[in-house]
């Protein structure tokens, strides 16, 4: 609190602040501007800092939760689990890394796929879980994505993907590289069948995912200030031995260079994507009715 506010609010303000009885965990610091944020308020704002507009990273479940209608959700391809075909081992076994990631996130791998609706428009939506192994794409991510897209293709309902990833999963070596071809192939099927695919890039999107499913949307969208690119900034700096310009690979850069169609703030994502998809499919929208009291 600034000295000016303190004066405005009168004496005693400072003291009250110091003896705050707010329970632990009700406040959170914005990772960018460090402003203390009241959690319930932050959540209502889709985890976007009301002070600096920073789009705080959120998990796949929450992402889909704030995007889809509350009713009629069905998880797809949840039975697809990661496979350690190479028995990859570095300082730790990949198998153990997977178990640790599963424990930490409560997810089996880094992609969640749901069939649901957006303002009553049926669709399939997928989201990357960045907390799971950096959202990296191995067999399970590629397979879940592909199976989910297949549902879109079969039912002729739009397909949406929120990506957040470091790229291909090194520990699955070439099998993960092949997921680039696999996911791109199914997207091409959607394209030929006239089924809309909207790709939404959220911070960050790099490597093998950027160079496949993320850039292939009929419409490519990015959240404000998200980073997306093929090579990471460190690699580029090492290669060209130059400092990168400010804002390099950020959403605004991507828009300026024609890689994406639009930058959409998280709180407007639902409305924007619904509007686009309604026009692309010729299907009407309907606001979901808030159910206030359970029967």
């Amino acid at each position, binding site marked *: 609190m600034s000295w000016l506010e303190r004066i405005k609010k009168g004496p005693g303000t400072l003291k009250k602040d110091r003896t705050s009885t707010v329970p632990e965990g009700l406040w959170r610091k914005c990772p960018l501007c460090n402003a203390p944020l009241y959690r319930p308020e932050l959540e209502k704002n889709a985890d976007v800092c009301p002070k600096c507009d920073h789009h705080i990273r959120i998990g796949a479940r929450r992402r889909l939760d704030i995007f889809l209608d509350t009713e009629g959700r069905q998880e797809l391809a949840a039975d697809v689990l990661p*496979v350690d*075909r*190479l028995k*990859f*081992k*570095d*300082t730790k076994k990949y198998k153990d890394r997977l178990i640790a990631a599963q424990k930490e996130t409560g997810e089996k791998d880094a992609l969640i796929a749901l069939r649901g609706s957006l303002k009553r428009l049926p669709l399939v939506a997928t989201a990357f879980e960045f907390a799971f192994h950096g959202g990296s794409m*191995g*067999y399970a991510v*590629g*397979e879940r994505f*592909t199976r989910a897209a297949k549902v879109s293709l079969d039912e002729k309902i739009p397909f949406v993907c929120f990506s957040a990833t470091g790229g*291909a999963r*090194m520990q*699955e*070596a*070439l*099998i*993960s*590289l*092949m*997921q*680039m*071809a*696999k996911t*791109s*192939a*199914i*997207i*091409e*099927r959607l*394209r*030929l069948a006239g089924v809309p695919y909207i790709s939404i890039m959220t911070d960050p999107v790099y*490597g*093998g995912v*950027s*160079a*496949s*499913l*993320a*850039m*292939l949307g009929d419409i490519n969208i990015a959240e404000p200030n998200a980073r*997306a*690119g*093929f*090579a990471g900034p460190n*690699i*580029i700096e090492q*290669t*060209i031995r*130059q400092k*990168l*310009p400010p804002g*390099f*690979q950020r959403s605004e850069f991507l828009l300026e*260079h*024609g*890689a994406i169609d639009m930058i959409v703030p998280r709180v407007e994502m639902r409305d924007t994507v619904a509007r686009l998809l309604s026009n692309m499919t010729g299907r009407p929208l309907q606001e979901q009715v808030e159910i206030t009291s359970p029967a």
Partner: protein
Amino acid sequence: MNLNYLDFEQPIADLEAKIEELQLVGNDNELNISDEINKLREKSRRLTETIYADLTPWQVVKVARHPQRPYALDYITRMFDEFDELHGDRHFGDDKAIVGGIARLNGKPVMVIGEEKGRGVTEKVYRNFGMPKPEGYRKALRLMEMAERFKMPVLTLIDTPGAYPGIDSEERGISESIARNLAVMSRLRTPIICTVIGEGSSGGAIAIGVGDILNMLQYSTYFVISPEGCANIIWKTIDKAPLAAEAMGVTSSKLKELGIVDETIPEPPGGAHRDLDAMVAILKNKLSAQVDQLAGIPIDELLAKRFDRLMSYGN
């Protein structure tokens, strides 16, 4: 140390040096030492076979990147009856890291597209060390779509340290250019045969690597991240690259075992660079046979197979 030989080939290099020395002595003295030379040659051949029979994955990577390794143009200029190079992506420029054009393979028109690293400093710089930019992949796409229209099979030769990681690459959408190729190649209505001839590095390689048949030359390598890059991430030092190569399984034999690669094409003893003519003949025969084989399959059936194959990766 002889720079033509890799570190693990030094015993061969030593023998070859001895042979050379003996030959000089023989020339001077008119002594008949040809028996001795022949014996040493035989020994050198057997030594090469022994060493190459048991290469570690990291050693294979070194052979794949050997400075004398045949590059795409070495094959293109020798393997075809005719070759007309086609330039440019029609949007921005002509990327010299990717060479493409219409060629004749045993009398049959094909579209050939290869990544070219360039030999010698000047040409390496000219070819950007075989690191394509978006316009390179878009040129490749243009040629592939042309091949579809004129019913030519597409042959790609993969050999790159990776797509170029630079500011201009990113500005012009390197990710999109790779992704677009993957998408289009999955359904291009003409046979596609892809061959890793040297180094198949990640997205830069697969961007011309989706097709009906994936070949790897015996001592070529294919990986999602370079062993150095992998080692740097895990062990924080590129010195552990041999371990990373081992862990990732970057060799033709391992990738065949995983079902990702269809055929490994044998190389002459000591690698393709030891006998370029023999290597060209082997590759030419193989590709000719594969072109004929794919020509016999109805295109819809071929496309269905290609798609099913793509969908099966990792299963």
